[in-house]
């Protein structure tokens, strides 16, 4: 997952300029010259300078550094799946946990992760359930964190 420096430079340049354009819209404090815009403005200006330097250095190394070089793992299906499950699984937790409930989403997430990381299926099932229950006990009971019950709320 290597990008040429110029790619980072371009992204950062856009970010820095966006901040610089946005900052003057911040209100000033009456009677004071230095409002909430000055500090982010200075930081963004510095970022723009760095971004330009990155673009220059990236273009200079264009011969050896391609725009984008995928890591060797991208050719291994198992590793791509593992990465996708990790990211998508976490997003799914964020979207579903409140509605469906921790005790249902967590073991499914764990099971999917275990299997995609190469754990045997029966070990994965048992571990997923045990870990979920331990985590629920530790956080819900001991630390009183309101982990969402979701759809099984009526059962308790």
């Amino acid at each position: 997952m290597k990008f040429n420096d110029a790619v980072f430079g371009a992204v950062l340049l856009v970010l820095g300029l966006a901040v610089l354009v946005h900052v003057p819209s911040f209100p000033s404090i009456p009677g004071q010259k230095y409002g909430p815009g000055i500090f982010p403005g200075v930081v963004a200006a510095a970022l723009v300078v760095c971004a330009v330097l990155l673009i220059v250095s990236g273009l200079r190394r264009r011969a050896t550094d391609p725009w984008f070089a995928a890591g060797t793992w991208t050719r291994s299906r198992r590793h791509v799946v593992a990465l996708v499950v990790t990211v998508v699984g976490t997003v799914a937790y964020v979207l579903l946990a409140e509605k469906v409930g921790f005790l249902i989403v967590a073991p499914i997430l764990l099971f999917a992760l275990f299997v995609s990381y190469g754990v045997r299926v029966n070990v994965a099932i048992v571990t997923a359930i045990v870990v979920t229950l331990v985590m629920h006990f530790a956080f819900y009971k001991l630390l009183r964190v309101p982990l969402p019950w979701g759809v099984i709320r009526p059962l308790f």
Partner: protein
Amino acid sequence: MDALLIAFQMVFEPKTLLVMLGSAVFGLFVGAVPGLTATMATALLVPVTFFMPPVMAIAAIVTATAMAIFSGDIPGCLLRMPGTPASAAYTDEAYAMTRKGQAETALGAGLVFSAIGGLFGTAVLILSAPTLAEFALKFSSFEYFWLVLLGLSCSIVITAERPLKGTVSLLLGLLIGCIGLGNPAGFPRFTFGSTELLGGVGLIPLMIGMFAVSEILRFAVDLDPPLRIVDQPIHNVFKGMWALARKYPVQVLRGSTLGTLVGALPGAGADIAAWMAYAMSKKFSKEPEKFGTGHVEGIVESGSANNSALAGAWIPALVFGIPGDSITAIVIGVLYMKNMNPGPTLFTQNPQNIYAVYLLFIMANLIMIPLGWACIKASKRILRVPRNILMPVILLFCIVGAFAINNTVFDIGVVLVAGIVAYVLEENGFPVAPAILGVVLGRMLEENFVTSMIKSDGDLLAFFSRPLAAALGALTLAAWFLPPVIRRLRRLAGV
């Protein structure tokens, strides 16, 4: 003296001792598993410490990190893979000793000199922090502005192979720190209309993402085959340690001193201390040719350096609120949550808390010896714990832990985004430590910058008007401009 008594009571309370024991076991385990770092141990502890009184929370973090930095040596010695980055400097050396049948000595030296280094760093912390705090009471916004800027500059100069990338990382951190209401004017900046962002991006979810989730992502795409453990009986690891201490007193002292100093410099922590100490040990050694072939001298020196760096990092963290490494960056977040705001007033108003921190450091480094010994004994079993089971469990822990701070799933999103961004940045040579420092120190930098600008009515020369401020300002400018000048001169000289 009353304060000291209260501190004793707080530390030796059974509950606190129990927390220390638990965090010690946790720290030893996390340190011993390759891919899990001491910083990650701290980030994972925070959601739990959130529910503890301040001294107990600090006890958990101090103990866990000290243990993790030591136990990182174990897989380095037995698998040739450092358990934490702080052990990477001498992993090859330790493994070479193992292959010569000297695993006992390598592990013993790691353990004993870790404890000695840690105690040395603690002694420096105890002796220097109160004096510095008294000094810091005289600081105005100008001095604080320069001090923060100096700290941030150090983090770039020391850590980054390419200072430009370190600077980018720092600036991104500063911008993230700008999000929300937390600025002198109390105006909501860059919130995109989101109520969750009004309070800013949570430091804890950010840390969990950058230091734990990024490691999990790295594991998910890791192609390396599982490592084979060297099967070698380990008997008495303490055998010959006294002789080593008598043979290498200068090395221990030098390593500990360097470690404490590097630790106290913002942005550089135990890992850089270990690399520098190892290099220095080789340079000054009478037998440099033996380095790399399984020679214990470098392990003695850098093993004491990485643990002393831990304590050293607390000096600027407690006195100025400027973290010395990424662990204390998290600690500062915890201290603010516990209303134990770091700064010189912490020493005058709550001396018992400071004494408690000292005691905790001493205790942690003392119990390291028996617990570390037990960990070495159990090491083969720990190293067999399959990481493909461990990593999903850690991910769920990150999710639940991030949720626990504010009870909002928004923070879980922050964890994931921070993890992905940190992973991509690190893959491309951008160090993440400056970004964290930027987030932690951004507000302090801005407050002192704006206050100073208002006081001086925009006159930048006023930043040098007080002698102390001028000195700190000169140091900061030197940190920026000296390294490139020296590099150019060297190139001109053809060296």
